[in-house]
Every structure is written in structure tokens, then in C-alpha cells.
């Protein structure tokens, strides 16, 4: 069976049934309840994977706490949002991401290039080939 949400009526924590919310994932509507993470909404809807790694392999949640970046997707145009850390908001427009390489060496993403450039995330990754290494050397 797939992952599922515990029914409110059967939940030992005595939680309320929950306010429903609706997001779209690559254009398809998916429902959840307020308070769930986007990963939680997707898992409970029976999706165990949504990202595509470079080789084409599917990925979903791995660490569940924002460390592995396996679960990233695009939310309302902003790429690389960790689905396990981001609360779902009613109306969120989610698109899945892919790192599959296309012929000219570009990374094919399911959102437009313009969006990627706009919301670019700064990590040491972007400096990986030179300056990170310099930083790694200092005082280690």
C-alpha cells in the first residue's frame, strides 16, 4: 500500500478533521489538509516520487527534515523548494523538477528557464569548481 494520512477519527492525538486544501501538481489537482507539508500532501495522495535525477531515476522523500534536497520541486514559480519543509498552502501551483541532461548539456527543468534564473538559489554549489574548494582548505 502507499503512504496515507491517519484518519482523524482514529487519531490518538484527537486532531480535528482538518481544513481541506487544494494544490495543483503539474496542472493536476491534488487535495490535502491544512498543516501538511507539500511532501505530506503528495505522499498521502499516493505519489512516492516527483523529482527526476540526472540519470532519469525517480526521487521523492529521503531524509524528511530538509537535509538531502531529494524532494525539491517548484512552488509558485520558485524552484528548489524542499517539499518536506514547506507547508502546503491552498492554491499552491507546484511543478516537478528534473535534472535530466538534454543534448546541449543544459539541464532540462519542467519550468521555464526564465523562472530558474529569476529565483536562482545561492548555495556553495554555484562556486563549487573553484572557490568552495578554497574555502574548504582554510583552517580545516
Amino acid at each position: 500500500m502507499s503512504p496515507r494520512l491517519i484518519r482523524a477519527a482514529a487519531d490518538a492525538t484527537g486532531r480535528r478533521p482538518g481544513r481541506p486544501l487544494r494544490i495543483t501538481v503539474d496542472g493536476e489537482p491534488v487535495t490535502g489538509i491544512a498543516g501538511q507539508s507539500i511532501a505530506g500532501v503528495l505522499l498521502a495522495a499516493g505519489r512516492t516520487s516527483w523529482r527526476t535525477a540526472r540519470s532519469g531515476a525517480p526521487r521523492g522523500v529521503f531524509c524528511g527534515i530538509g537535509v538531502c534536497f531529494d524532494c525539491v520541486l517548484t512552488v509558485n514559480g520558485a524552484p528548489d523548494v524542499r517539499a518536506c519543509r514547506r507547508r502546503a498552502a491552498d492554491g499552491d501551483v507546484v511543478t516537478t523538477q528534473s535534472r535530466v541532461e538534454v543534448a546541449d548539456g543544459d539541464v532540462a527543468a519542467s519550468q521555464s528557464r526564465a523562472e530558474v534564473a529569476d529565483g536562482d538559489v545561492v548555495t556553495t554549489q554555484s562556486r563549487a569548481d573553484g572557490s568552495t574548494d578554497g574555502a574548504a582548505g582554510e583552517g580545516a
Partner: protein
Amino acid sequence: MTVRQVVVIGAGPAGLAAAASALAAGAAVTLLDAAERPGGQYHRMLPEEYGAARPGRLHHGWAAFERLRRRVLGHPRCTWLAETAVWALERPEPGHPGLPLVHTLTGPADGTDRPRRTLAPDALVLAPGAHDRVLPFPGWELPGVYAAGAAQALAKGERLVIGDDVLLAGSGPFLLPVAAALLEAGAGVRAVLEANPPRTVARGWARRPWELAEQPGKAAELAEYTALLAHRRVPYRMGRTVIEARGDGRVEEAVTARLRPDWSVIPGSEVTVAVDALCVSHGFSPQLELPLAAGCALLRSPAGEFVAVDGDQLTSCPGVYAAGEITGIAGAPAARTEGALAGWLAGGGDPATPALRRVRRNRDRGRAFAARLAAAHPVGSAWPGWLRPETVICRCEETDYGTLCRAATEEAGAAPRVAKLATRAGLGPCQARICGPTVAELTARLSGNSPGCPADGLPVAAPHRRPIAQPIRLGELASSPAPSEPDTKESTA
């Protein structure tokens, strides 16, 4: 006299206790956490929207936690910054005294246009905790294979059950609360597999059994989990682990095998089990990016690298204290004690206060407990035996073991930093948080060096050095910091 400003990063057991005692010492405290609610991994709270009437049903020590949380967050000298991630710590210029500046972003995780703040504390308590360490094995990248903490976080934090045929494997007592949380949530748990044989575990504890007895809360908690597994007829097997996950697009089967004490696989002992989820944990990795950004020295122990602290929880950087799982893995009670000591001293409390004697004693017991834990649940040195050339080591870049072997045995591949560039291992979005220690270990072994040993005069690659601790978007970086808040001292930077 101006009030001393203490910034506490992380509101888990360690950070919350630190905030409480810094307040008791008379300081003004800014407590912040990337999560929306305090509690950390141990007292992970349900979302407010769930309106849970009995949240304590999922927790140990809930009433005490609730009291502490109310007292700290409601204190007039406490500023609680929820959903606030520290994305960088900025060290003062060399030769200049002072503490690192704390750069924060407040708002939904990985959002856009989150307001930026810079805090300039008089003292800093780092309590960012740890995450599961998972050793690679063939198929571990399949969806449905989770770090054990993920299953725990989803069950405790959102009431999501990951499957009905769940297998738990790895090493350490943490597998037990995860199994308990899954059972409570209604999941089917096939078995819990501890890779170490009974002899190793027993020897680890038996040498000084009183050290377990001196963590009474922990001992009772573990006994309760064991009883629950027995009651629910979930087998707890020692000396066996998962050596492969298989499936088409998601995990469908796990291959388990018996291990020798060094974790070499006993040929012919393989068994295939049908699963819909697999949870794995081989211990914990401390979140070291903030301590390293602050310039804190690390300490290498048999359980891995941790932040080095003195008897006062002070790091090698003046004014910077560390508490909780970043100084060693000993569970929530030990994290709380360390936090209490760190917070008191960071807050300017009298180091000679008689009440501290008991706190220090408990802290020392916590440290002894951490050492026992590491001795009872070591990672066996022969674990790479279950790797195959095509096994993914770096999940982000999909660098496989074969590539790593080639890079490491070639001349230029002798140092981890070089291997990193040649293979791209560790250069993906997680910035080596998951594979860093593994790649460093494998590279060192393959090139014949002991782990962490610099090759040819090169400095050791620090797998945890990440100048940007949490992602920030270009737009956010370009915007000016938010204006000061009345009760938080801010720098002009």
C-alpha cells in the same frame, strides 16, 4: 547597565533549555528555529491547524516540555523567531574581537522575498542538532527508502504513515522509537534489524552498565519500546541488515543478510522480503555547518566528528557555546542538560553557582552515555563489502562506487577534495550533507590513508564546510536587511 544579548540557534531540547537558563541568568534571549514551532526533532510538534487535543500522546516528557516552552516563549526578555533560518554566520575580521554576526531569513522554507535580519549577539549558543547518517547500499536511492528519521518526522509531525510492510534496519537505539512511532500510527512493521551482533552491543553497555542506569529517563523509554515490540510481535534481530533494496520505480523488496561483527556479509545468509517502505539509520551526523562557519574546532571521536567544547560547553571561539547533538549523540535528556549549562554561562550566570554542580555532573554522565552508545553501536569497518561498482554513493550527483574507486586510486585522487572535483561527489544540492563523511571515509581507504589524513600536504577537505548554511535566493541576498526590532539588538551591517 545594558542587558546581555544571547542568540540561541535551534529550539530543540538543547536550545530551549539554553534559552531558559540564559533568561534565568538575566540575559535577553533571541531564540530562533527554522521550524514553525519549537521542540526540535525530539518534541516535534503537530501543526497548529491540526487542532490536536492530546498531542502529548506521541511524546515522552510532554508536560515538562509544554511548561518549559510556555515559560521561555512567554518570557518578557525572550524574542522567539519562528520559521527563521540562519543562512550564514559571519566571523569578525581576523584580529578583531567580537562574535560572529548571525544572518537570518524569516518565512516559509525556501520561499522568496523573506525578510533578512542580522543579529549581533554578546554570546551565541549553537544547538542545530543532527540528522540520520545512512550508509549507501545498492538501491538506497529508490523512492520508498527513507532515513529512519523521515518516517518518524512524518508520523509524529504530520500523522502520515509511510507504509504497511515496513522494514527498519541499521544500528542504534533510535530504530526503536521509530518502530514505536510507526506502530502507533498504524503501520505494519516487519522487523527491526540491528546490524551489530548481541556481543558487540552487550559489551558496549556491560562494561559500565551504571552509565545506562544513570540516564533513567532513557533507560525506561528504551525498555518501553522493547516491550512494545514484543507485545506487537515485531522481531528485533541483531547481526542482520539490509544489503540491497530492489524495485521498479520504488522499493518493493529488501535483501537482508547476516553480518559478522565487522559487518562483513555472511555469504548464503541472504533473505528477500517484500516491503513497501524501508527505513534506515546508521547513527547520526551532527549539523556542523554553523559551528564551522563560526570557526569552532572539531573533535574526532569513534562516532564521527563533533564540535569540541570545554567543561563549560564553550567552543574554541570566545563567546560561542555549543549544546546538544552537535557535541555528541546522547539523546534528548543529555541535550537538555548541555543546553542548560551553555545557556547559563552564555547569559552571564555565575560559573560558581552551587546549582551548577548537579548540572555539570549530569552533563558528564550524558557524555559517558554518548561514549557507551558509540561503543555499543559502532559502524563495522567492513560495511563497504555490500557496495557494487554501480551503487550510488552521492545521491545528488549519482556518483557511483566504481567512479569513486577509479578517482581515488588514480594519483590525483588521493585527497577527498580532489576526488570531489573529479567525481562530482558531494557537489550537488545537499552539499555533501548526506554523502560527505562516507565519501571522505571511502576515499581515504581506497587511497590507503587513514580517514582525515591529509595527502601530500593538502589540507583535509572538510565535508561540512558550507559558507551558506541554508539556501538563500539572489533576490533576498540583494535586498537590504529588515529594520531593527525593539527588543532585539541588531547590527548596522
